[in-house]
């Protein structure tokens, strides 16, 4: 159905009345976004506790951790973690964090809530698919958590689940039977959920923009969600077949990934002919775009926050968009840099190393645009902008170690050491998390009509910032010193002297983890008792700040969709409301430099 202007209209769904329709099986993208955020919150708490258990064990590997036997009596007899259980906890920590936190919160949670509003639509075009995407994702979370409670425990093969260990079945170790099947089911369902979400994001951005909202008038956060959903569409569609083939190797006796003549525990395995490298290719073809899926929304959110608080647009809006697009395209060409030591042809290593170095160019451009835009700007300091600055810092710190890993010659030394672990934790575990925190502080007033406590926010920032550096900077030193990753204890003579440093890191990790509880308290307290916020507390320009009510009404904009007259970041102008003009404002401002 089209109205007279030719503009397609959303499927109108009437405001829900029942509790179930309002809060459980909701078609409203805002509720779905909050549901995703809640899922990510639960997941991050579980993932964080797992990291504490891991870190305590790494510092004191023979000591009991009181109460651990309640989690698993076989995994922690007498409260002392077995080596296998360490690997199981590590696998769960990574799987939960990468999928259910870093993909869910910046992309699914904030994207679902704010993309339709930022393009000026009343909802996504396929609300039923959108609702399904959340519930399918949640149904993927369940098998993963359930794997803690099966007799053997969860899988221990790392979030990367390399074959043949992941494919041989229970003979491979604790958790390698049911644990792997549960893992692959969980991730397979997660892929389906995210594909449904990507469908909605792409069609929303392309088809549901309101009158006057050209693509170049989209805010940078909207661009980042759009680019991320294009990546998600193609990457998750490859992981799902891989998970299906893995499940078949387990339950149907096929040999996609298990080679022949494999002897485990003196038993010849009944498989033949499979390719272990095939799993790595399939997984990393997904895996590398996945890490950009985790970071690109953060880039968009951080750009959005910084522009609002700098009161001026970025040096080049278009180059930022092009760079994020270039990151997305290049991310498919670099995946083999995870496989430099896999035994594949060294020429392939060269072929992957080159685009990996090339991909640093758009990353650097993005950082330089941020830094160049910040230069000379009077940045308003609040929790959101602090986390945005922290994001830049962490992205630079984590990114530069990537240069060393990008080259096969140095990667041979650094692969599977703590150097890699430091690299990806800084960019994903910290920078992407900072993007989530920044987005929370920034958009909380719009979602709930209340401000979060600024003092607590600043304390949260400084503790997290200092703490994260205290945890992860030493990882690079550990890696260079030869500390192997995925080891549960360091008994070899060249690693033993590193244990005191591990203990320091553990203390830092526990301290930083405790600081996150400040955020949790702030979140919950502000939800009910926070200071009331106006419709546009940050004096921002994009469409989410021009909704008729706060929180936005069911159809986002009330009776009439907004008409967009301006580019997204008209700051530093003289208008009737201040130094900015909102996108939906029809006010003609002479100094606003709008493109067509």
């Amino acid at each position, binding site marked *: 159905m089209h109205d007279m202007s030719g503009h397609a209209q959303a499927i109108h769904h009437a405001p829900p009345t029942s509790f179930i329709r309002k809060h459980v099986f909701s078609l409203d993208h805002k509720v779905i976004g909050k549901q995703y955020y809640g899922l990510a919150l639960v997941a991050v708490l579980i993932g964080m506790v797992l990291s504490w258990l891991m870190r305590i064990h790494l510092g004191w590997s023979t000591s009991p951790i009181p109460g651990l036997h309640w989690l698993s009596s076989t995994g922690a007899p007498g409260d002392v973690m077995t080596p296998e259980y360490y690997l199981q906890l590590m696998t769960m920590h990574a799987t939960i964090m990468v999928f259910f936190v870093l993909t869910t919160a910046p992309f699914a949670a904030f994207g679902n809530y704010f993309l339709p509003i930022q393009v000026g639509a009343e909802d996504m075009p396929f609300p039923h698919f959108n609702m399904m995407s959340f519930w399918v994702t949640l149904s993927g979370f369940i098998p993963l958590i359930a794997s803690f409670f099966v007799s053997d425990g969860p899988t221990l093969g790392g979030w990367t689940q390399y074959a043949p260990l992941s494919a041989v079945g229970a003979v491979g170790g604790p958790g390698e039977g049911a644990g792997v099947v549960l893992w692959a089911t969980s991730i397979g369902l997660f892929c389906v959920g995210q594909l449904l979400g990507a469908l909605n994001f792409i069609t929303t951005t392309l088809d549901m923009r309101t009158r006057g909202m050209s693509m170049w008038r989209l805010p940078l956060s909207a661009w980042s969600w759009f680019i991320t959903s294009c990546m998600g*569409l193609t990457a998750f569609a490859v992981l799902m077949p891989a998970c299906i083939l893995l499940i078949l190797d387990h339950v149907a006796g096929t040999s996609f990934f298990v*080679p022949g003549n494999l002897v485990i525990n003196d038993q010849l395995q009944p498989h033949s002919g499979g390719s272990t490298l095939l799993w790595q290719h399939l997984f990393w073809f997904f895996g590398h775009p996945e890490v950009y899926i985790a970071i690109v929304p953060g880039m968009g959110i951080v750009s959005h926050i910084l522009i609002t608080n700098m009161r001026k647009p970025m040096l080049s809006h278009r180059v930022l968009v092009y760079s994020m697009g270039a990151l997305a395209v290049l991310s498919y060409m670099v995946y083999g840099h995870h496989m430099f030591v896999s035994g594949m042809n060294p020429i392939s290593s060269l072929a992957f190393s080159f685009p990996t170095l090339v991909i640093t160019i758009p990353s650097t451009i993005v950082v330089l645009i941020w830094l160049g835009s910040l230069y000379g700007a009077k940045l308003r300091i609040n929790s959101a902008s602090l986390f945005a600055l922290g994001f830049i810092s962490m992205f630079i710190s984590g990114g530069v170690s990537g240069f060393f890993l990008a080259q096969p010659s140095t990667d041979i030394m650094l692969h599977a050491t703590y150097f890699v672990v430091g690299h990806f934790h800084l960019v994903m575990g910290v920078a992407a998390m900072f993007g989530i925190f920044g987005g929370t502080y920034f958009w909380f007033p719009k979602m709930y009509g209340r401000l979060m406590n600024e003092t607590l926010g600043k304390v949260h920032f400084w503790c997290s910032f200092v703490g994260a550096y205290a945890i992860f900077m030493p990882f690079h030193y550990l890696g260079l010193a030869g500390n192997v990753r995925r080891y549960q204890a360091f008994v070899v003579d060249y690693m033993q002297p590193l244990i005191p440093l591990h203990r320091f890191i553990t203390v830092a990790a526990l301290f930083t983890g405790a600081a996150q509880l400040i955020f949790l308290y702030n979140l919950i307290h502000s939800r009910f008792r926070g200071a009331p916020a106006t419709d546009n507390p940050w004096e921002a320009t994009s469409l989410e700040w021009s909704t008729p009510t706060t929180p936005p009404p069911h159809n986002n904009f009330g009776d009439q969709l907004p008409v967009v007259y301006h580019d997204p970041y008209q700051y530093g102008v003289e208008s009737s409301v201040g130094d900015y003009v909102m996108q939906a404002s029809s006010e003609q401002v002479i100094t606003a430099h709008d493109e067509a």
Partner: protein
Amino acid sequence: MATTVTEPPRIEEQRERQRPIGTSGNGGGRNLVPAQGDLRRVKDYSPPPSSTGIWVVLASITMSFAAFTSALIVRQGSAADWHHLTLPGILYLNTVVLIASSIALEVARRQVGAFMKAHTDRAAAPSLWLYITFLFGLFFVAGQYVAWLQLRSQGLYLATNPNSSFFYVLTAMHALHVSGGLGGLFRVIYKLKNSTLRKSTLDATSHYWHFMDALWLYLLVLLWMKL
């Protein structure tokens, strides 16, 4: 300590823009004044979401089958246990049935399109060819099942050898997606009967169906060549 910064050389003076401090460019700087309501420069028209959405869906399905294809190719090269598989004859009949269903769907689409534009004398919505398409689709899925039975009678099960594994996996995944297409067709017929069908929905469903047809032809060639 003061540092003197000299002015950079003024190259391309004409392109230098006079701008108040604080409005670093969005690249344009043509000082457009957004007149009220005058949005001629901005296109109003958006395609119906389902027509964009279906291409998005087909892109992801393409990626999935590309992953399966590369799995097949790599697996073939990884060990010397590739045992040639003679494709069951019914596959070729199924192919003809599927192509016929696509033709039937096109006939249906044009008839319904003409009906919607009231270029026809019909009183009721023309659904016969949609039913025929649906029937052919059912025959296809049933025929695939018969193909699996034929393989089973030869002693070729899912895990017997890698060829049979890929045969079952690829044909089953395709049949699963065709079943989804059958669901879409059912929805179209239902909506047509209720007079709530949009042309864009019908178009999207038929794009999906034709894609399943093309995908099957691709898989058939792949299976014939590789297995």
